[in-house]
C-alpha cells in the first residue's frame, strides 16, 4: 500500500481530520486529530507501520497544549505525527500506553514536565525530577514556569515491590564503583536468579530541553554536543538536520559525506570500546586492553581529521567546518586497514576463547516480542531481530552506498557483541566507499535565509536513532526542542534482558547495551 492510500483511508474514516505534509519537508506527515480520535489514529498507524512510538511529547502553545505522537513508516521513508490540542484548564488526555506500551515512558515524561495527566496509565511516577528534591506542582516545560524557591528533602520514590518467601532486594547505586555515570538499580532476587530489576534514572538531569528554549540555533548546537558526550556528533548532526529541514537548506553532497564518515568513526570508537568492555566484565583483560588501544587510535585519528577527539565543533548549520582534504583522505586510507588488522586480532582472541563465549552465549536474552513492545531500537533492537537502521531506511547521506543493517535473532549478549563487531567492520568499509564518492565541492552552504517552523532531525547514532524535533519561532530562537536519545527507550530492554540471569552477570548484560545516562536524563 502506498502511504497516500493509508492517508486516504484515515481521511475517509475521519473526514473532519486534517492530514498534510510539513510545509518545510515532505518526509513528515502531520495528522491533526482531536483528543477523542487521537488514540484510534495512533493505534492504526502503530499497526499499519509496525512502528513503536518513536517519540511523544507536548508543547506549551499560548492558548493550549499540543501533544505529538510520532511513528516511522520505514517502507515509505516517512515520519507520521498525530497531534491533538489539549485545553489548559483540563490538562489531561487518555493514555494510549495500555495499547501501545512504547508510549509509557513518554506519558511519564509529559506528566512530569508539563503537568498533563495521562489518564488510565497506572504508572505515572516521575523519571527525572526526583521526588526527594523536587516539590509537587512545578512543571519546567510550561512557558510560565518559575523554579521553586526551595528544593531538598521531600517525598519518596515508590519502587516496585516483589514479595514472597525468600525474596530479597539488592539496591545498587546511584554512585557506582567504576568510572561511570550514576543510576540506581534495584534487583529483586530469589536465590541467585533476578526476578525483577527496576532501573531508576534521572540522576544526571540537567534540564536540557528547557535550557534550549530561547537559545539561538548556534547556541543550541553547542548544547547538543554536550547532551551525550560519546554521541556528540550524532546529536549535533540531528540538530543540524532539523534546522536545515526547517530552512529548506540543501547542504552540499560533500558535507553530507563528511558527516557520514565522522558518524561512522564515532560508531567505531564506541563499538570497539564496548567490545572491550564486555571482555573486561568477564575479567578477560588482554582483549580489553587491545580494544582500548584501538579506541585511542580512533580518537587520535579524530584529532587529526577535525581537531577534536569527540568530533565537537565540526557540525554547523549548512554543513561542516572541517574538510577531509586529500591528505586527510590518504591518512584515513592508510590507517583504516591498520585499525582493521588490529581489530581482527581482537576478534580472534575473543572467538577462540571458549570460556569467554560460554559467558556471553545465551546470557541476557531479550526476546524480539519484548523488544518490539518496548520500542527497543538500534544495536540492542537489531540484536533481537528488529531490522531498523535509519542509515538504510531514511537517511539521505547514505543513499547510493550499498549497505544493509546487521541483525541477529538470539538477542543475547553474544548477539549484541556480534552486531557491534559486524558494524565496526561495516563502518570502516562504508568510510572507504564514501571517500571514493567525494568530489571537490564546498563543505558548507552559508547562504540561506531564516525561516520559522518545525521539523524532525534524525540520525542513526551508534546506539540507535537520535531524534531532535525542533520548533523555531519568529524571534529566530528555539521555541521547543524535543530530544530522544536511543538510551531512553532501550533501558527498559535491559531490565527485561536480565530476568532469570544472576546478579554477577548484570555488569555483562549492562555493558552489552551500554546505554547513556546523560542521554536518557537530559
Amino acid at each position, binding site marked *: 500500500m502506498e502511504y497516500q492510500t493509508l492517508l486516504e483511508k484515515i481521511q475517509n474514516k475521519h473526514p473532519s481530520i486534517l492530514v498534510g505534509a510539513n510545509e518545510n519537508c515532505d518526509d513528515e506527515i502531520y495528522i491533526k486529530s482531536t483528543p477523542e480520535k487521537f488514540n484510534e489514529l495512533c493505534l492504526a498507524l502503530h499497526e499499519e507501520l509496525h512502528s513503536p512510538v518513536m517519540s511523544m511529547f507536548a508543547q506549551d502553545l499560548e492558548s493550549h497544549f499540543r501533544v505529538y505522537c510520532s511513528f516511522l513508516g520505514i517502507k515509505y521513508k516517512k515520519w507520521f505525527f498525530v497531534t491533538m490540542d489539549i485545553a489548559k484548564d483540563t490538562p489531561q488526555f487518555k493514555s494510549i500506553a495500555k495499547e501501545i506500551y512504547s508510549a509509557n515512558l513518554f506519558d511519564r515524561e509529559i506528566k512530569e514536565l508539563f503537568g498533563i495527566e495521562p489518564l488510565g496509565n497506572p504508572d505515572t511516577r516521575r523519571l527525572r*525530577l*526526583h521526588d*526527594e*528534591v523536587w516539590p509537587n506542582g512545578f512543571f*519546567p516545560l510550561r512557558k510560565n*514556569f518559575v*523554579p521553586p524557591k526551595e*528544593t531538598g528533602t521531600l517525598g519518596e520514590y515508590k519502587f516496585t515491590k516483589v514479595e514472597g518467601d525468600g525474596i530479597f532486594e539488592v539496591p545498587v547505586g*546511584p*554512585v557506582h*564503583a*567504576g*568510572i*561511570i*555515570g*550514576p543510576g540506581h538499580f534495584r534487583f529483586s532476587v530469589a536465590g541467585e536468579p533476578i526476578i525483577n530489576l527496576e532501573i531508576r534514572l534521572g*540522576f*544526571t*538531569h*540537567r*534540564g*536540557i530541553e*528547557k*535550557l534550549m528554549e530561547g537559545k539561538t540555533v548556534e547556541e543550541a548546537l*553547542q*548544547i547538543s554536543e*554536550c*547532551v*551525550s*558526550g*560519546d554521541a*556528540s556528533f550524532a546529536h549535533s548532526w540531528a540538530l543540524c538536520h532539523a534546522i536545515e529541514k526547517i530552512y529548506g537548506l540543501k547542504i552540499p553532497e560533500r558535507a553530507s559525506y563528511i558527516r557520514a564518515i565522522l558518524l561512522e568513526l564515532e560508531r567505531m570508537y564506541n563499538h570497539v*570500546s564496548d567490545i572491550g568492555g564486555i571482555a573486561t566484565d568477564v575479567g578477560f583483560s*588482554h582483549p580489553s*586492553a*587491545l580494544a*582500548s*588501544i584501538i579506541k*585511542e*587510535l580512533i*580518537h*587520535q*585519528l579524530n584529532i*587529526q581529521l577535525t581537531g577534536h*577527539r*569527540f568530533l565537537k565543533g565540526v557540525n554547523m548549520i549548512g554543513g561542516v567546518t572541517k574538510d577531509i582534504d586529500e591528505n586527510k583522505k590518504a*591518512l584515513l586510507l*592508510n*590507517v583504516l586497514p*591498520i*585499525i582493521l588488522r*588490529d581489530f581482527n*586480532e581482537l576478534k580472534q*582472541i575473543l572467538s*577462540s576463547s571458549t570460556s569467554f563465549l560460554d559467558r556471553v552465549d545465551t546470557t541476557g536474552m531479550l526476546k524480539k516480542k519484548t523488544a518490539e513492545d518496548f520500542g527497543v531500537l538500534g544495536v540492542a533492537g537489531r540484536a533481537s531481530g528488529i531490522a531498523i537502521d535509519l542509515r538504510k531506511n531514511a537517511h539521505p547521506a547514505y543513499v547510493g552506498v550499498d549497505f544493509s543493517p546487521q541483525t541477529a535473532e538470539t538477542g543475547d549478549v553474544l548477539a549484541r557483541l556480534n552486531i557491534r563487531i559486524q558494524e565496526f567492520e561495516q563502518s570502516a568499509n562504508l568510510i572507504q566507499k564514501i571517500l571514493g564518492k567525494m568530489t571537490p565541492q564546498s563543505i558548507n552552504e552559508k547562504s540561506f535565509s531564516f525561516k520559522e517552523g518545525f521539523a524532525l532531525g534524525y540520525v542513526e547514532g551508534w546506539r540507535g536513532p537520535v531524534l531532535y524535533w525542533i520548533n523555531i519561532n519568529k524571534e529566530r530562537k528555539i521555541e521547543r526542542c524535543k530530544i530522544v536519545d536511543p538510551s531512553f527507550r532501550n533501558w527498559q530492554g535491559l531490565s527485561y534482558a536480565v530476568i532469570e540471569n544472576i546478579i554477577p552477570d548484570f555488569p555483562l548484560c549492562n555493558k552489552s547495551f551500554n546505554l*547513556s*545516562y*546523560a*542521554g536518557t*536524563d537530559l
Partner: protein
Amino acid sequence: MSALDKILISSIKKGIVTASVDLSKIEALGLELKEMANKHFGRSFNIREMDTGSCGACEAEIIAANNPIYDVSRFGVNFVASPRHADALLVTGPVSKNMALALKKTYAAMPGPKLVITLGNCALDGGIFKGSYYTEGGVSSILPVTTHIPGCPPTPTEILRALVGLLKCFTG
C-alpha cells in the same frame, strides 16, 4: 611462542599509527607524577571519580588516561572504587540537583586531608548548563575545591599534566 605472546608482541611492535600523541612527553610527565606521588602520598595517589551530571565524555577521557597508552596507574595514580580510601575526589558534571546529596555523602566518607578536583568546564561553574533549573552551578557551590582541570573534555594528556601541577603544589 604461544598465540597470545605473538599477539602481544605484534601489538607492541605496531606502536601508534597516527602520531598525534608524543609518547616521550607522556613518559616525562608520568615520571614527574610518580616522583610527586612518591614524595607526598607514599607512592600511591588514590582518586575516587564521581559523575554529578556529566555528558559522559569527561568520564571517557578519565578512562582513556588509564588505557595502555597513557596508563596512569604505572605512575602511582590509582582510581579507586570507594571514597574510603581516596586521597582526592575527582568530580565531573555541573551537579544535578539529584546528585547534590550523593556528592556530599561521598565527600563525607573520605578520610582527611580531602582534596577535591573538578574536571571539565561544566564542573567548574555549570559551564554550558549554567542557569538551568536543575543544576547547582558547579561543585564549588557545595564543596571546597582544590583545583580545576579545564576542557570539554580535557584530553588524557591534559589530565596528566594537571595532576602533575596539583601534586607539585601539594605540601600537606
